[in-house]
Structures are given as C-alpha cells and as structure tokens.
C-alpha cells in the first residue's frame, strides 16, 4: 500500500468566528505537535468583520456602533492581510497544513490556495484568475475570494473566504483587504451551485493540488458534504 498523506476534513457548517477560531487554534496546536495530520476546516460565519494583524483600521468604514446595530461582529485577527468581511453565503476555509510536508514556501502556498479556488470555480463554469500583486481570486477585476494566512512553525492557519451567495452589500462597511476594488460572488456571476457542491469541489481541488487523501471526520458534528452527496 502506498504511503498516504492524509488531510482530515470537517465542514463545521454555521459557526461563530470566535468558536471557529478556538477550534482552529486547538487544531493548530495539535498539528504543530504532530498529533494529527493536516486539517481542512470549512465553515460559514455569521456577519463578522475581521482586521488582520497588519490591517488598517481606517479601512473600516463604519463605527463599531454602526456595525453593532447592523448585527455585525468585529474581531481582530492574527492572520495576514487587511480587513475583511465574513457572512452567510460565504464559504470560509481554514487549511491547517504543515508546509514542511508539502513545500516550505509561503508564497507557493498562497498561490496554490488560489489555484484550488480557481480550479474549483472552473467546475462551475466560472473563469477566475489571479491579479498581479493582489492576492486572492478574481473574476474580471472583481474579487470573488479573499486570502489571509498565518504561519507559525510552517503550520498554516486562517485561509480563504469564497463568496458563494454572499450578500455583497455588507462589503460596503469596509475597504476589503485595503484594496478599493469591487467584490463579487458566484451567485452574482450566474452560478446557482449548491454550497455542498462547491465545498466538494474545493475539497477535491485541495486533494489534487496538495496531493493528499481527504478523510471526512465526525459525521455527527461536522457532516461531510462530500459524503452526503454520495449517499
């Protein structure tokens, strides 16, 4: 039997930012100690705006009071990148990979995550690509997925946010990632794909580009959409 490079996959479904962060941190700790294989968390957050460690608060265009009234949480985050919005209809992915087992190259990692999303979108007929100097995934000058990563001891955390059916009006509160370029979503681009199918495409592309075998974990509390689609 060939040696398997395994990545465990969990779809947490709807989970608060803080809750998902706690789960993520716990897994990162375990990953650093080599107790668990690579992990891929997929989650959908309620409305939340997060500011990266090197973000600029001036890219938040509303007061915290306004956000509170709009039902939007605000969080500081230790990921790279500037400010971003997460919310319902967005597919957020937190890959917790030990890059020593893949490639010790943080830029190659970010490029690979971009490629995963680009190839997953292609499965739904969306031609996405990169924009030189602007990390993320873009369609005709509009950003469909944002990327922000934190790395400690070559273990990655945070990740990407793909606008699937995101209500784009929530981006009005921020200058996404500090770049004054418009955002878009799969829905706006004319795709009516189901969340489960998009998640399945993403996991499939992750497995392809990072060359691991995906194991779905904990069906009860983190139902794998992949398994669901099959059954």
């Amino acid at each position, binding site marked *: 039997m060939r040696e*398997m490079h*395994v990545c*465990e996959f969990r779809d947490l479904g709807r989970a608060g930012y803080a*809750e998902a962060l*706690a*789960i993520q*941190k*716990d*897994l*990162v*700790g375990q990953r*650093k*100690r080599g107790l668990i294989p690579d992990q891929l968390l997929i989650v959908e957050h309620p409305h939340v705006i997060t500011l*990266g*460690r*090197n973000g600029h608060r001036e890219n938040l265009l509303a007061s915290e009071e306004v956000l509170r009234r709009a039902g939007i949480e605000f969080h500081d985050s*230790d*990921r*790279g*990148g500037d400010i971003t919005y997460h919310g319902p209809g967005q597919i957020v992915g937190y890959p917790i990979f030990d890059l*020593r087992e893949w*490639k*010790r*190259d*943080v*830029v*190659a*990692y*970010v490029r690979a995550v971009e490629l995963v999303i680009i190839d997953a979108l292609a*499965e739904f007929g969306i031609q996405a690509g990169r924009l030189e100097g602007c*990390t*993320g995934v873009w369609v005709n000058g509009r950003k469909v997925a944002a*990327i*922000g*990563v*934190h*790395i*400690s*001891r*070559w273990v990655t955390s945070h990740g990407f946010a793909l606008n699937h059916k995101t209500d784009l009006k929530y981006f009005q509160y921020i200058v996404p*990632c500090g770049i004054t370029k418009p955002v878009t979503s799969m829905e706006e681009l004319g795709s009516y794909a189901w969340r489960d*199918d998009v998640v*399945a495409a993403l996991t*499939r592309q992750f497995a392809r580009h990072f060359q691991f*075998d995906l*194991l779905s*974990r*904990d*069906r*009860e*509390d983190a139902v794998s959409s*992949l398994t669901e*689609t*099959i059954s």
Partner: protein
Amino acid sequence: MTDVVMPQMGESIVEGTLTKWLKKAGEHVERDEPLFEISTDKVDTEIPSPAAGVLKEVLVEEGKTVAISTVVGRIEEGAGNGASAPAPAAAKQAPAAPPPAAAAPSASTPAPKAAESNAQPEPPVAEPPGQAASQPPAAAAQADGDSQTGALSPLVRKMAREYGIDLRQVKGTGGGGRITKQDLESYMSAQGARTMAQAGAPAPPQAAAPAAPAPAPPTASQTRPASPAPSAPMPRAEAPRARVEPMSTMRTKIAEHMILSKRTSAHVTTVHKTDMTKIAKMRERHKGEFQQRYGYSLTYLPFVIAAAVEAIRAYPIVNASIEGNNIIYQNEINIGIAVALENGLIVPVIRNADEKNVTGLQRAIVDLSTRARSRQLKPDEVQGGTFSITNFGSFGSVFATPIINQPQVAILGVGSVEKIPVVVDDAIAIRSVAYLALTFDHRLIDGSVADQYTGKVKSILENWSEEVL
C-alpha cells in the same frame, strides 16, 4: 552574539516585511520562542528565535521591508557560557546570570553559521537548497542597505548597493516615505557620495537585563517550547466519537464516479406508479417450478428489465449518450444492474439484453450478481453498459432518485412491490404496486419523453401476458 536574520520563506521570496517584534530589546527570549513576525504576500509568519538569550539589538524596525538574510537583530546568548564566549560579550553579561552547566550548543557556534540556519522557522531541518548559495555574509547584507521601508525600486536598490549607501540614512520623499532616485542623488551630493560605513545600531544595549537567562535546554535542538496554552476545548475532544479509516479503492472510485455524474448530467427523476399484479400472480404461479427447474428463484427484476428494454426500442434516446455536442445512439442495449456488495456497489452489464427472455435475464442476473459478490467479474463485464437499472426495492425502498451511471443518460429505479388498496373502476381493490423512478439527463431527454418512456415500461408491465414457463 547570534545574528537574527530575515528568513527565506520560499524559493521566489527575496524580501519580507518585519511587521512586529514580539520581544523588545533587552528582553530575554528562549530558543524557538516566537521572536518577531514577518509578512509576505498576505501571509503572516511567526519567526522563532535562533538562540536563547537577550535580544541585544533591534536593527530593523517594525514595518520595514528588508531582503532575506538581512540581519534584523542580535541575540546575546543567555547561557552566559563564560568559558567559550568571546570576552566582550562575557563582560557585558549581567552578573545575575550564572552560567548554567549545560551550554546551549548554539552558544559556541560561530555567528555566520548561526545566521545561516537558525532563523528558519524549523531550525533542526536543513535549508532549502537555494538559500545557502544565495546567502551573503551578514556584513554584506548590512551594506546592501536593504533594511529600508516600503518597496524599493530595483534602480534605487542597485544605486544604493553600488555606492554603498545605508538607506536608513536617506530620507524618503516618495509615497509613504519611499526612497526615490532623486532622494538618493540629493543624499549623495550632500555626502559627497562617500560610503557610509557606520550602521548605527538603534537599540542601546541593555546591560542590566532584568530577566535571568533560563538554563539552556539539556538536549540540543529537540526542545520546543510547550505549545500554546490550550485554548477553548473542542466540543468533541473528550472521547473519540469517530473512527478514521481511509477509503477503499472501490469507495474512492464510487465517490469520484458519483460526483462526476452529478456534475455532468442535469438529473431529473420522474416516478410512475405501476400495477404489478399480473406479474405478481404469474410469479406466484411459477415460483416453485422455476426454482425447481433452474435452481434459483424468479424475481420481479427480469420482468422490469425486459419491459425497460422493449421500451428502449420505442424511445432509443434513453439508451444514448452525449459526446461533446453529438448524441450517440447505441445500437446495442446493454443493461447495467446495480449490485450491492458488502462495502460498496458494482454495476455488471447484461450484454444484448434485448436478445434474452425473462428466464435468460433472470439467469444473467443471478450469474452476474453472484460473481460480483465473490469478486469474480471480468473487467469487460462491468463495461459497455448503455442503460442501468437499480433495484432498491429489494432493500425495502418505495422509491428513490438514483444517480445516472455515466456516460449513460438514464437509470431506472425499481421500488418494492407492495400490496396496497387502490381504486379500480370506482371500487377499492388490493393490488401489487411498485414505483418506477426514472432518473434522466435533462440535457438530452425532455420531461415528456422521459414520461412517455416510463409510461411505456409501466404499460408493458401492467399488461404482461407472456408466460415464462
């Protein structure tokens, strides 16, 4: 002193932005403890300290972008190590720090070597091949003058290198304090283009570091600091509520195939209620004799296959496939039969099913499913199907919405045959009824055609007259 350098975080990476010092000058740091953070292309990375000791000098301020291998700070090995450390360092050592017995191996390592390997996030492992070669000595990195804010244009970088200018001495007037060519020229004319040798360490040495250095780890490089304080426990952390098991090859194949099909075809399922009473009665009549004569029982399935095949003759598009923008009408009618295995399923094919009668079909079903379960099918016996039938009714399902077996365009699902009360000519009668579910590819087959086809199958079954024996 151990030099702390900007690490190379990937092959193509030539510089990094030091975003945050996690320790202040004069503070004690453990080997491998996060010392500073860098940012490259939306990735923030914590860099562990290459040595245990006191952060003596901070040479690159937060927010500055410097070339890889640039010395960003210096650590005075905290182990004290009076015996082997150079005299000046020992002299500066706070008296409160007694040299522990076991000296950190890195303390006696020559500085340039330490600079090469220690600032990597994972010290015990070797460098990426490219780096050692491209690694300039620490001094050269300094003179390179890259320790400057913002993105420098290649021209400015080149000029600074050629003229030996320490860019920290140059005031930038470009956007965001960026140094322009003009800035360099005016600086050079003011300085007479003389080489700036003095680097000017911004951080005054803090001789009386309050923190006593911790004893060096007893084993060389293996000691890592305890991982971060346990955060909020995961809800499922207490007991293993799940078991992890890799998928079998068959399961992987099934998974791929199912997803591929869902992605390929526009699945629609139509369900027709079918009165199987005539066939049920005939089956009842011949059951014993059939079993006696052939050695296996007579089921509903061969009737359904026979009906499906006959209906295909009327609606051949159900037996087609799609290639690009072409419709491929198959001349053969090869019916795939889904067979449940202990841990998966397989779809062996009854070739030229239109040439077989009910008895022949039943025999083929028994033969293929028996060999499928004992894994004795030949490869060509699971290939070449043009239409499939799945008999989930045998597991009690009334009706289901099967997934098309690619590259086919339709699959017929047979629900369980149950006796139910139905209204026949305004009277209530007991009838054996089954639901026939046809999943079809709406790209090729319109709903009306699908219903005409399924209606035809239903009609053949409901009006069955041919005796089997």
